[in-house]
């Protein structure tokens, strides 16, 4: 009987250790969820001006040029 209580305690101990290692921390989880629901902040940066956005366009393949 004594032996089985000891082994049960050992098992519980191991379980706790494993939980501590692999279960996510409650606070971490809360923070992660909070982040997911957070409304994105409005960017303080200006929008890309048209002159610069032209760099992002594909090249025109109707003309043969280098």
């Amino acid at each position: 009987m004594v032996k089985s209580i000891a082994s049960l305690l050992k098992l519980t101990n191991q379980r706790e250790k494993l939980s501590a290692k692999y279960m996510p921390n409650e606070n971490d989880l809360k923070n992660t969820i909070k982040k997911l629901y957070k409304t994105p902040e409005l960017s303080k940066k200006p929008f890309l001006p048209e002159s610069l956005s032209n760099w992002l366009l594909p090249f025109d393949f109707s003309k043969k040029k280098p």
Partner: protein
Amino acid sequence: MIFESRTRVKRFEEEKYKELAYRYYDILNKIVGQPSTGIEIEQLEKPMLSIAKDSHGVIYYCRFLVDVTEHPSEEIILLLDARDKRDHRLENELRNGIKGKGKFSWLSKVNSEIITENAQLDDLSRQSGRAYFAYILADEYLWRLIEGVKKPMRKAIGQSEGVDIVNPALSVEEILILNKTKYASDRVVLPLFDNGRAGSGKSTMLYHLFAEYVMRRLKSKLPGRLLFLTYTKRLLEESKKTVENLLKVGTEFIGESLNDNELIGILNEAFWVFPEFLMHLIPQEERFRKFPAEKFITNFGDFSRAYDKITPKTAKLYSPDMAWHVIRTYIKGYNPTNELTPDDYRELPKKERNVPIEMYNWVWENVWPRYKENYWDTQDIVRYLIVKDAVPPEYSVIFCDEAQDFTRVELHFLWRLLIYREYDLRKQGKNLRIPLVFAGDPFQTINPTGFRWEALESGFYTEISEALDPEGLGLVEFRHEDLSFNYRSTAPIVRFGNLLQMWRKWFFKVSDQILQKPLA
């Protein structure tokens, strides 16, 4: 586009054809330009197989029109072979080829003058040993370089004596990647990581693409600067000259004029050797005070000489290359603001750690303190500029050749140069074509940095995405292209190289090898 069959490429390796190359150049120019003047053209087998001849030579060729999605509608002239006079035996072989027989049987797979499927284009690519843009024909010197004819008829436009111009020909595989990069807009195209082993000609592809951006700047006067970084002075000169020549012959070909002074101005401003580029960003007094020339470690060669002075003889447990690797990749090269301590190193993801912790500790204790005290290298300038927030976000186009020599911190610095980080990009749509292009070959590193494309991509992805796309809206995605064909070596050599790579993979437990495909 001009494609050359492998038979044609071999033909011009013969002395007889090399010496008379200019005659074939004239015929070819007429095939592309004005067929009616001075040559006879005959259709050997309808609809695509033709011959063009004058009194000096004959060229056997096919014309195709490409009509494939994501590929520009353009004409391909495939040069099959050349002879000094008509060769009836060859003509029979070509006719049989179209029927699927003999050594030209591959012609039957591309059995129409209009190429509508990628598979047909691939077949054509496999049979072609070389490709180049038709505008190259505007300059005989460049064309002769492509053909491997040693003695040029005349100097290239503006060519300096003793400057070795890089061959501007591309592999067909590269042309396909290049076209996709230039024209595609509905998928991930840029930023691009271009990975190719020696002989794949990846740098040449960079020159063609960069020339496009220079042209855009010249024509549209868009704001922002262009930057092309290399690691050596020789590469810098070659790259600049090749881009200049490509632009000049290209505009000559379409009958446009180019403002020479403006072009030279843009190129001089754009091309830099990396350490010099870094130095020019630092005010002169700071340069003298913080980075004295006599303490500069340029490369691994310098470091290995300094290593004897800074490491006690009795303590030398590891070779200088390992110490250099640890200092460059991790201690200074991993984090832009802090040195990576042994404790930090232990915390890195397993795949990011490629030296044992004992070695790390040893370098940290025995080499690093005296190296830090007595010397500096490019990473110190990079870290200095990042910490001082002195990286100018002024560049709209950034190209880096030999990217295998950049560390994580240096790459962090590069994206901070992008002008786009100053703006909110959310209105621009997804998969933005940010003109950021890297070419490299991990097997040609001049610094033993333990470079891996995966590490570069993951580091870059996190940092650029956080900076340009903090909400993860898919604004910036990266494209990775491996150049897999080896156009330079014969099949047995390619297979032998692959065998060594397999051994390397097995022996060092690495996964970054790229097995090359021989053409045959």
